[in-house]
């Protein structure tokens, strides 16, 4: 079969670490290949000219090498049809889809070889199996980690769940409501959290981090560092005495900084484990080198505070590893035009979640910050007072840090929907408030999402198409500057509260974890799955799975579904005692030989 290979580049990042010239030479030396042509970066292709080329070279198969799915294939398919060829023989050798980004030139070459032979890459590059021990390590105790842990543990298999924070729950525990059903997030999550805490098959390690992973698929040796909590989890009854006497306070991570916590604290009342934790960084005792304070240990009625506790490391062996590290939100201070950090009443989505949450610092009241005099610091500062004035006009700005070539090029997937949810919450709690949504494209793609979007607009929220360009302060009044694209006019919108729908970025430390495990991340930093369509939970490394938002931005239903799918993959290997080996270890010649035999060339 006469084959033509056309190398195209859809993005600069997509070709990093790949020597395209080497790929070109390699492809030219494959049997069947009649011609190889490098079309360069994002070429403007004309189907008619391409069809002439296909005809002139009498090509029966066309391989598009390097393309991201959906970029150039339509043009080539059209050209093939015009040339009178078989459109099924237009084959995509997607570098990005099959992990050549990060795996380098040999991987790119093997992808091209498979396409030239007409064999699906995942089929030719199927790794072998290896003996697997039953234990499973889950990194990250958010809803993905919790779901996967419960599924595996309920099947009677041992799970080690490692969480960096003092409690499990992740971001979902911070939320007030879920979209589009407006269910209470805590009501769904806390029973699962409690189940994890009590499960006999789950070894829960909170306030702990994975330090090192060695070994091979099926036999991973894991070292976990358990940070000193200084509070005995078993003995602590969460009586709050220590917090009451603690003299030090700092901003609360769980309340995304809109409220303070003490140096010894419990992140929230439903935390699992339901025990206090002492944060050394903000503690006076540790700051003074053990000379001052220590009052919490003296006052604790259960005597369960041990100020001399040291970090511990534990080691164990697992067969499978599940990465469920989730996401962080984009740092809104990087977008100066929205004035976050300077304008007091410009807040991020997570801050609003905590504000509108009935268990949050304002008791669920939506208020604007007020200027108060701080007597101790002798300055005027903006504070969040539950009795503060409610905003009359609220604006929600979509795509903050997302879909922007200067920030994150990708869509963060959840922001449109949570923004609509915010509009509902604002209008529910403040029926007289005017609420605006400023969006670029409304991405309401899930079950019941479009209906939810329509409902919010029908409820009286002004849904305006047009990205806000700036937030300026004019005579003490915040004004949003933008274009209303549907009505074709410029709009200046005075508002009292602005919520920035910040996008999602990979969790802090993802790079370290990827290096430790030897798995690839895509150009945006998310962990790469083995195959976009057919193996969305496996990775290049055997026995390493990805669940939830650490693979790509995801909402709660998708995260839970993926976590359950991961559990199925883990259980398959644990039950049979054999799991997949690493695809990363397959050599180019192995893949090529396999593709050749499958294609019977």
């Amino acid at each position, binding site marked *: 079969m006469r084959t033509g290979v056309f190398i195209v580049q859809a993005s600069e990042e997509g070709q990093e670490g790949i020597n395209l010239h080497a790929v070109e030479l390699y492809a030219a030396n494959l049997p069947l290949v009649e011609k190889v042509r490098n079309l360069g970066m994002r070429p*403007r292709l004309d189907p008619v000219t391409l069809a002439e080329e296909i005809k002139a070279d009498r090509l029966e198969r066309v391989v598009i090498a390097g393309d991201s799915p959906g970029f150039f294939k339509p043009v080539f398919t059209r050209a093939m049809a015009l040339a009178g060829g078989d459109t099924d023989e237009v084959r995509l050798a997607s570098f990005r889809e099959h992990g050549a980004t990060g795996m380098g030139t040999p991987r790119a070459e093997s992808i091209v070889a498979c396409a030239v032979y007409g064999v699906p890459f995942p089929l030719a590059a199927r790794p072998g199996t290896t003996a697997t021990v039953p234990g499973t390590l889950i990194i990250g105790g958010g809803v993905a980690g919790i779901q996967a842990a419960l599924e595996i543990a309920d099947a009677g298999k041992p799970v080690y769940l490692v969480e960096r924070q003092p409690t499990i729950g992740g971001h979902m525990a911070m939320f007030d409501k879920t979209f589009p059903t407006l269910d209470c997030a805590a009501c769904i999550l806390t029973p699962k959290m409690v189940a994890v805490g009590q499960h006999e098959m789950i070894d829960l390690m909170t306030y702990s981090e994975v330090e090192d992973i060695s070994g091979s698929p099926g036999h991973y040796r894991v070292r976990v560092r358990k940070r000193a909590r200084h509070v005995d989890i078993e003995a602590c009854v969460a009586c709050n005495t220590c917090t009451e006497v603690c003299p030090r306070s700092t901003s609360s991570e769980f309340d995304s900084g809109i409220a303070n916590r003490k140096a010894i604290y419990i992140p929230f009342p439903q935390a699992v484990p339901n025990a206090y934790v002492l944060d050394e960084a903000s503690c006076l005792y540790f700051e003074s080198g053990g000379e001052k304070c220590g009052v919490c240990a003296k006052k604790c009625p259960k005597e369960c505070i041990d100020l001399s506790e040291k970090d511990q490391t534990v080691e164990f062996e697992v067969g499978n590893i599940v990465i469920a590290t989730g996401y962080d939100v984009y740092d809104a201070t990087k977008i100066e*035009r929205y004035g976050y950090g300077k304008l007091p009443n410009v807040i991020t989505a997570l801050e609003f979640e905590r504000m509108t949450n009935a268990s949050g610092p304002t008791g669920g009241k939506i208020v604007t910050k007020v200027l108060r005099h701080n007597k101790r610091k002798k300055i005027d500062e903006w504070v969040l007072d539950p009795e503060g004035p409610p905003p009359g006009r609220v604006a929600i700005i979509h*795509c903050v840090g997302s*879909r*922007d*070539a*200067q*920030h994150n090029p990708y869509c963060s997937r959840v922001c449109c929907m949570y923004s609509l949810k915010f509009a509902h919450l604002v209008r529910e709690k403040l029926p007289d408030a005017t609420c605006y949504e400023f969006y*670029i*494209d409304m991405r309401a793609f899930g079950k019941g999402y479009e209906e939810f979007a329509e409902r919010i607009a029908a409820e009286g929220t002004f849904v305006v*198409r*047009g*990205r*806000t*360009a*700036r937030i300026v302060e004019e005579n003490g009044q915040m004004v949003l*500057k*933008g*274009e*209303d*694209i549907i009505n*074709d*006019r*410029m709009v200046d919108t005075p508002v009292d509260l602005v919520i920035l729908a910040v996008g999602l970025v990979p969790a802090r430390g993802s790079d370290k974890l990827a290096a430790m495990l030897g798995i690839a991340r895509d150009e945006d930093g998310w962990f790469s799955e083995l195959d976009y369509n057919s193996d969305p939970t496996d990775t290049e490394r055997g026995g390493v799975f990805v669940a939830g938002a650490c693979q790509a931005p995801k909402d709660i239903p998708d995260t839970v579904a993926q976590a359950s799918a991961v559990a199925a993959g883990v259980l398959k290997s644990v039950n049979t005692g054999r799991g997949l080996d690493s695809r990363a270890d397959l050599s180019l010649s192995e893949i090529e030989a396999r593709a050749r035999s499958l294609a019977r060339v």
Partner: protein
Amino acid sequence: MRRPSMAIRVNPKLIDELELYGAEDVQNCYHCGNCSAVCPFSKEPYIFPRRPMRYLQMGLEDKLKGSLEPWLCYYCGQCSEECPRGAEPGETMMSLRRWLTSKYDFSGISRLFYKSGKIELLAVIGGALLTALAFVLWAVLRGGNIHSYSGENAFLPAASIHIFDWALAGVLLALLLTNCVRMWWFTMGRDKRLKVPFWLYLKGLYLLPLHFLTQKRYAKCEHKRPWAIHLALMLSYLIMLVLIMFFLGVMWSGPEIDWRVHVFGYLATVGLLGTTIFALRGRLKKSEPHYAHSHETDWIFLVLLIFVAFTGILQHILHRVGFDAAANVTYIVHLMGVVPMLGLEVPFSKWSHLAYRPLAMYFSAVRAEAMEREEKKALEPAMAAQSAA
């Protein structure tokens, strides 16, 4: 009131065509409106650059041809800097100005130049050679003395050159005016829904010299330097033009320098050289947003300008220090630059914006007022009914 529906013919190749004029990334635009919102000039009813970007993507050639918006943009580049898609709205507006210039031009020469820098270059070189040939032949045939710069038997007598200047100016003005009339027809005259009473045109007429001389709209950009540079260049050029058109004889005479006239000449020369060097450096280093993309025509324009300014002052110096023969040769070289520069740039290329920009300010103001009147008129019956009730 229902307007009769009008089918609009789209030109799907328009985006590709604009690529030849410099706009490369128009299809990246996803219409978030950021550019229009950051633009200090984007005010109703002239919202841009997003709207023209939309017209381009949809291939609405006629709508674009009737747009004044590209001329209201001064390319401060803020839109491009903040564009989340890298769609380069600023450069698109610049390309649209080039495209519009070629549309206003009836002869099609402008289109040819913009589409191929080579053709423009050839025309410049051809024009230069012809000019040299014509002047040398004329000087030799009438027995001019190469060693004599001024006076009766000068190689190129000032009086004759003066007549030539006025003739050239007349031809260029006629060409440019024709294009201006076409611009009026596309943007104002053709629009049947627009009813502009004559007195509105008269009322706004002061805008033409005002914008021409002060470019005060340009000064509204956040960064003032581009405006200052542009104004300095324009004023220098204008001074030079006045000197050449009205005081050529004074500049020619000698040997003593008549400072009342010459001080202006030196000032203008410094202005021309300084600003063109600044612009060339900027374009080479891509130091500012509006220098980041350079079309072939931009380079030809700047190189011609600096060439002309340099040879102009050089022949003057040579004459003053007594090298009349060298001065005569340099003068011929100077004319080899001046004639093609004016003859090609003013009616057909970049320089035509000296007419189009002030005209656009004028037309846009007249148009906006006419539209407002129409709107008020349309609302009148409803208002009357309301007050009656």
